[in-house]
């Protein structure tokens, strides 16, 4: 495997995570619990899709990848590299909010590290997305703190959502030993294991402040497979819906 192959794997996984998470979150548009939150959540979903686009562009321009739109919408399901965590249907707002909280803190840590990446095109991108991701985590933290002190039922639902989400969220850090070794040696990023440690530290403290018990990593089985192209039953229907308009006329200019 060459350095460029390893980079392409990492960028595709990051971009697919952002695209699928963005699409899932956008499904709340018009259905959010209150108007202000509906607007905020939809706006952040758009941000995510923007992050995916920026990464697909880097793939195209630096690594000879496909044109971003067709790469995003026309691939077969097994060619996507997103983790299972982002594929699951929205369920109720507690699940969506907890997913947003765990996912965005992982994004914040990843992009923070990429600001010093040896792969130059990632540095300005990481710098540019800093403020957006800061807002996403601020939004998530404010909701988690609020709902954890909003009564017994509310607290119980947040803890239960955390228990459901935690093994799925560990799937964000699914190891890819072959590509990972190259990327670490080249100074492109510190590797999934180190990112996971930083994420666990940060999320543990935030959960503790909200009174939530973060399950022990050793007590759960992380849900892996996405990075190798094995997906949940929920991805294919999502891809069909997401790409329906694009596929109706792939040559159209927007």
């Amino acid at each position, binding site marked *: 495997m060459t350095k460029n192959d390893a980079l392409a794997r990492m960028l595709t996984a990051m971009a697919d995570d952002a695209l699928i998470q963005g699409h899932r979150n956008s499904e709340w548009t018009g259905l959010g*619990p*209150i108007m*202000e939150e509906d*607007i*905020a959540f939809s*706006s952040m979903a758009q941000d995510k899709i923007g992050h995916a686009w920026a990464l697909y562009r880097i793939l195209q321009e630096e690594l000879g990848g496909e044109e971003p739109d067709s790469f995003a919408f026309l691939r077969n399901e097994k060619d996507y590299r997103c983790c299972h965590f982002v594929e699951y249907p929205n369920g109720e707002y507690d699940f969506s909010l907890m997913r947003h909280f765990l996912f965005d803190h992982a994004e914040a840590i990843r992009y923070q590290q990429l600001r010093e990446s040896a792969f130059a095109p990632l540095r300005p991108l990481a710098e540019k997305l800093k403020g957006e991701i800061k*807002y996403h985590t601020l939004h998530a933290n404010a909701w988690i703190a*609020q709902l954890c002190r909003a009564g017994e039922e509310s607290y119980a639902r947040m803890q239960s959502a955390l228990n459901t989400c935690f093994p799925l969220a560990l799937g964000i850090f699914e190891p890819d030993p072959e590509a990972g070794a190259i990327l670490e040696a080249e100074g492109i990023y510190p590797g999934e294991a180190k990112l996971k440690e930083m994420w666990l530290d940060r999320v543990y403290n935030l959960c503790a402040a909200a009174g939530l018990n973060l399950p022990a990593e050793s007590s759960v089985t992380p849900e892996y497979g996405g990075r190798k192209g094995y997906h949940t039953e929920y991805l294919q229907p999502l891809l069909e819906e997401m790409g329906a308009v694009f596929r109706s006329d792939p040559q159209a200019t927007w």
Partner: protein
Amino acid sequence: MDQPQYSLDPRVNRLRLLESGEPVEVQEGENWNSFEVFHQEKRGAHHEHVGCVHAPNAQLALVFAKEQFARRKKCVNLWVVRSADILAFNAEDEDMFANNAEKTYRDASGFKVMEKINQFKKSTHDKK
């Protein structure tokens, strides 16, 4: 007695009034508040009122206000303040301001200073 009306809107938590007519105390956090939002376009500029949001607390009001009022165009900061904390005159006190339009002698525009300013500018320019 009629059944209490429950709203689908989570911000609306209808109070149960007692038949005896005793006053009902609204507990902190029982109802969402409205917060007025003030937008600052650049550092040092005034914060200007742009609208309001509903939120359970000031922290979330600020989070909502950011996407509500500052996701387009330039913004460097926002303020939120609970609408209930704003003190205002009553509408019927509008008569206090009624004669303002006649008191043109209070307009700063009445002072003629441009001549002096130009003279000063000219004198400092001449010295150089």
